[in-house]
């Protein structure tokens, strides 16, 4: 006959066995969970290394391009070109913004826009200088700026004054658009 003691211990053992028998499945599930976490950690680590290596790009990026928010109007846009700093002359009274385009590299928008200007409503911006030499030096210095994009250039001479002119199509200032690109 079963005594209460044996019965009690038996029930306790059955209870314990129920826990212990469920262990393999629990352990298997938890091992799977751990392995997935290890994989995720590995992926994150790789991503972080790559990301950290590329992070200085952001600093260069911000130092190179002014924020679009700083170019509130045409006056700010004109000033941002700093033509006079390079000995060039562009008539501010006839300068107008002609277009705005976002820049994408291999189909990815990189978070900059081109604000393009032209003279007298045309796509072409007329840039003057007192001499061919000064014009060449000025245009060269302007073209070396990473935040300036110049399109087709035609050097010629003014029919009346004989001054050298460079007509630049798509003369654009490249500006940062943080809000659209998303903070990274």
């Amino acid at each position, binding site marked *: 006959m079963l005594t209460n003691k044996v019965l009690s211990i038996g029930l306790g053992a059955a209870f314990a066995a129920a826990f212990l028998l469920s262990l393999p499945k629990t352990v298997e599930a938890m091992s799977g969970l751990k392995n997935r976490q290890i994989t995720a950690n590995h992926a994150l680590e790789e991503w972080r290394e790559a990301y950290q290596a590329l992070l200085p790009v952001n600093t260069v990026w911000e130092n190179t391009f002014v924020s679009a928010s700083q170019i509130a109007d045409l006056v700010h846009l004109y000033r941002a070109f700093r033509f006079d700093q390079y000995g060039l002359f562009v008539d501010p009274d006839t300068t107008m913004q002609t277009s705005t385009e976002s820049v994408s590299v291999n189909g990815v928008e990189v978070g900059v826009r081109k604000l393009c200007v032209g003279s007298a409503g045309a796509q072409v911006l007329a840039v003057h200088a007192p001499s061919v030499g000064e014009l060449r030096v000025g245009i060269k210095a302007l073209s070396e700026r990473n935040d300036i994009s110049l399109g087709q250039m035609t050097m010629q001479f003014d029919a009346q004054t004989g001054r050298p002119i460079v007509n630049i199509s798509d003369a*654009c200032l490249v500006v940062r658009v943080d809000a659209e690109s998303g903070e990274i």
Partner: protein
Amino acid sequence: MEFIGSVEHLTDIIEDGVQVDIALGGDLVFVTNEKDAIARLGSDDDAYVMQQRRMASRGRVFDKEKVFLYIGLDSEAATLLDGYKGRIVFQADQYLAYGLSLKSNSIVVGGSYPSGVNNDASVLVMVFTDNALQSVYERKSPITGYHCELLMADIVTRYPDHQIHWCAPLELPPMSDLTTNPLFVDAGQSATTVRVNRKVSLKKGAEKEGLYLVPGIVTALVGFFAYVGIVGFYWAGIESERNQYARLIAGYEEAYANSRHSLDLLRHREYYLRQTAESSVAVARLEVLLAGSAQIDRVMINSIGVSARNSDNESEIMSGEADEFNGGDFLIDVSIPADSSQGGARFAGEPLAKRLSALTGYSVQLMGHTEEMVTDRGQQIKYWRYRFGGGF
């Protein structure tokens, strides 16, 4: 320890108010190893308070045939003992423990004197065979040589190879065949030195076997804690990896939430920044074309244009329409004085294109030509005007 075998003796102890340790036996206790006997006794009257049965074998926890010792306490004694502060044990428990501790088959003889040492003794005889209680005998007899031999004769005859352990408080019997038996052992106080503490039930019904919840719960908890321990171990591993993840992602949560886009964006930005400014390339080419054209003898440069297209740039940077010069990369518009000795503008243009190619390093083709009159120092001079195109 006081050995008490009668209600009168117990009453004396209680009335004296002495809180001594007492061992109950004799008339106060009914002892048997027969389950039927104790069952009949329990159901017939209220003379006894049944005690919880005692396991009466050793090393047989899981044997099907279990041996138990059943004890009944006199109800009157139980009433008297209610509230008694001294320690209470049963003599039967002492002898049972002693008998089970013996390695050889034995007859343990003990008892008490209900009415004083010189009166009839209540003798309790337990027979142990193979580490289990086999029989129990309760007898009354004076402890004299003749009476002792009579008392034990049938038992000794039935178990001739069993040692006979004569225990206190029974006085040692006088010299007789029993005491001279080589199997006779004077156990003295051996059975009563170590007190066997068992619960003494003083009320009816208390003898019923407990539920033994504690062993059951302990067994269950062992399994549960083993489960928790192992699961906890694995969980700690997962937590460790999660903590590692938290450490790695700290400060990068937002960027990693859009990880692919973040990296792609940075890579494309890096690429975009690394590109030589196309504008400076175009200006450099304009310089080359200007310098090359200026070396043509007596040339008059009307205009020189270059596109901004950079054929070296493998990546596609889209920002509006591509520059075009009628399909070419540049356009040179120059005039030179007409020289009829060369056979006309058309014939003069070919060597001019070759000369420009040599001077600039670019592929230059003649695209068209016209004639024009140019005023130089008041003189009208005929010029041939050429348009050259080409590619870098």
